[in-house]
């Protein structure tokens, strides 16, 4: 047994390698990115030939993982919470096909929206799909859950969700590893039509999935990841899920928790454990990182006053928990002597000095000054930071690819010119289909694909656009003379302004592709030399 100091993300990756993983599939997204990167940089993973190349988006990633599971091998697909929205079609239907080789779906939620546009709780998705969830409370548990999760998935022939949150993903602790397991051989499902979701087969599979629910629940009741603790003080009982358990434990000296509690780290919800707690305590405080999912189930239609948590204001309804919020809910007094002076201003993130996006926005802002404001639909990436001063250059950021299609809708509504601003990696992730819509209808629209040849915001992963953007746009049917490129440097400002001006005036589909490598990746390549 070896002990390693690992991030939660890395513990997941190491466990998967040790447990006989044959392939990981993912698109980068904070806070999940480091899982795949760890496998990409791991020598043993390389020797074992484990697939770890990035996918175009979360949907293609999940479909590939499902294919590998079909072939009988152990596979893992990783994404951030909003990535699961992209992969939702596959996710919901994979629950119906079931798994063959162990299939783990790791979803990293971002409560408090440190690097995200919402804080949706993926446990709802798992409940929706009727599949089990493991939610580790510490790095060792993250390792153990992945390590045993593959055989769990194979035993019950089901995909399994591993749900983590930002603090689990990005916190480091010592992790004891287990012996390395051989990879599975190719072995197709016994029923070669198991994955054919024709209505007649889907109905049968769905009934099977429903009949497995009691089995999943029994597994939760006896799971070593879930536990019941009998305390001496029955005034309040605590249900603590995942990492929220740590914030609860932090409020007491080691081994001196006076209250009864149920620690939940495996779902479906272990009903019997919770019923036992409910029956023996005066009040029940529910600690969940994310939405009040368990709380809502238990509180129910009758708004049971015995249940307290996020819904009654004992805890905030939104944002992540911490030891102090939980302490307050337990009636503990907060002791801090210091205050932070009012002049300590926020320091928001910003585009890096020398970043090519800045030059593109400077040119765009100059040209758009001639029009009324509010015409730039943007997307998910570093360039979203252009919403802040000094650039103040964009008017929307919703989901991957929405820049093009929202600009299309606005153009359809008569807002012309309408501009879409998207990066190269986001464009290949989810922008190409929207562009095809525009081409099909000859929508008056100007699309700027600011190409820095990388997936920048998540740390410079490879981009599937690979200098092929011109050909991709041409292939999708954009007129060649309206695909314009330039190098976004200060000295080329006049050229950039001219190109943008001309294309804004064109009544049809224009694509402008400013191309200059990300300063961060460039710096890294130089350092490596």
């Amino acid at each position, binding site marked *: 047994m070896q002990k390693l*100091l690992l*991030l939660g993300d890395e513990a997941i990756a190491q466990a998967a390698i040790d447990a006989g993983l044959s392939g990981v599939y993912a698109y980068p997204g*904070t*806070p999940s*990115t*480091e899982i795949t990167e760890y496998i990409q940089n791991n020598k043993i993973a390389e020797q074992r030939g484990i697939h770890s190349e990035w996918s175009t988006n979360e949907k293609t990633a999940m479909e590939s993982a499902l294919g590998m599971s079909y072939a009988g091998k152990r596979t893992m697909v990783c994404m951030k919470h909003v990535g699961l929205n992209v992969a939702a079609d596959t996710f919901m239907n994979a629950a119906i096909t079931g798994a063959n080789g162990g299939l783990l779906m790791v979803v990293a939620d971002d409560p408090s929206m*440190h*690097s995200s546009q919402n804080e949706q709780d993926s446990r709802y998705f798992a409940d929706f799909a009727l599949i089990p969830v493991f939610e580790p409370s510490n790095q060792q548990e993250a390792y153990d859950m992945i390590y045993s999760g593959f055989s769990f998935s194979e035993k019950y022939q089901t995909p399994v969700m591993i749900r983590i949150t930002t*603090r*689990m*993903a*990005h*916190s*480091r*602790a*010592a992790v004891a590893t287990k012996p390395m397991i051989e990879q599975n051989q190719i072995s197709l499902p016994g029923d070669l039509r198991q994955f054919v979701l024709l209505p007649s087969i889907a109905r049968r599979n769905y009934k099977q999935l429903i009949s497995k629910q009691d089995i999943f629940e029994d597994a939760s009741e006896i799971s070593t990841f879930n536990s019941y603790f009998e305390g001496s003080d029955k005034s309040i009982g605590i249900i603590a899920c995942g*990492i929220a358990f*740590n*914030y*609860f*434990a*932090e409020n007491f000296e*080691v081994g001196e928790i006076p209250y009864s509690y149920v620690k939940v780290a495996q779902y479906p919800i272990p009903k019997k454990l919770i019923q036992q707690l409910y029956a023996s305590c005066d009040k029940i405080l529910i600690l969940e990182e994310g939405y009040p999912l368990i709380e809502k189930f238990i509180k129910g239609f009758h708004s049971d006053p015995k249940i307290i948590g996020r819904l009654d204001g004992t805890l905030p309804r939104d944002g992540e928990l*911490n*030891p*102090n919020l939980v*302490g307050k809910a337990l009636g503990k007094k*907060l*002791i*801090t*002597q*210091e*205050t*932070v*002076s009012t*002049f*300590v*201003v*926020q*320091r*928001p*993130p*910003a*585009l*890096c000095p020398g970043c090519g996006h800045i030059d593109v926005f400077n040119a765009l802002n100059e040209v758009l000054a001639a029009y009324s404001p509010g015409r730039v639909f943007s997307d998910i990436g*570093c360039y979203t*930071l252009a919403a802040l*001063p*000094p650039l103040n250059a964009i008017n929307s950021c919703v989901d991957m690819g929405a820049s093009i299609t929202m600009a299309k809708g606005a153009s359809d509504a008569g807002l012309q010119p309408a501009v879409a601003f998207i990066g190269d990696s986001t464009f290949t992730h989810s922008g190409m289909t929207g562009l095809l819509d525009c081409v099909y209808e000859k929508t008056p629209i100007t699309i700027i694909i600011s190409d820095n040849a990388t997936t920048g*915001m*998540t*740390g410079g992963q490879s981009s599937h656009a690979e200098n092929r953007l011109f050909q991709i746009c041409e292939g999708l049917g954009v007129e060649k003379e309206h695909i314009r490129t330039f190098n976004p440097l200060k000295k080329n400002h006049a050229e950039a302004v001219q190109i943008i001006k001309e294309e804004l005036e064109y009544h049809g589909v224009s694509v402008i592709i400013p191309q200059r490598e990300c300063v961060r990746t460039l710096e890294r390549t130089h350092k490596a030399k």
Partner: protein
Amino acid sequence: MKTDIILAGVGGQGILSIAAVIGSAALTKNLNIKQSEVHGMSQRGGEVYSHLRISDQTIASDLIPLGGADLIIAVEPLESLRYLTYLKPEAWLIANSKSFINITNYPDEEKIFEEIRRYKNHILIDAEDIAKKIKTARSSNMVMVGAAAPFMNLTVEELENGIRSIFESKGEEIVSINIESFRKGRDFSLTNR
């Protein structure tokens, strides 16, 4: 024995190298560690912090509670003031005086220094200046580790071994520059505490 440290700085300043050195020193003593980091959007020049917890007992939370930290090590003066509510009574504030100005409304520096000095247990050190005198500004984070060294439950030897293990892949010269930086930072704290 328990030490809870908040590391603070601006995205790109490399506060995680400080965490790595202290963490490595603690590991060789077989202590428990939890270290929460900030990855993602804030790394683009925003405020970043890390919670580093070291203990001979089980550590529950990945986050340090308010009023629970023994030490703030800040590689930037404005950032040193952002997390004061985390400090325990009698805790130490170790701040680099070299500012990183990437916002237009950066407060008056003298006002910042005054606020740091108002806090009784503080060390205000020009880590960059000390590092430059040794070689280049790059080792200023190890000056900061040195400046914090007298206030941690780790010995000089343990911390120097930590530096060695983190930098040894980069060659002996880099190791010795960083160890010298560490020593100069520590000397500063011992004479100015």
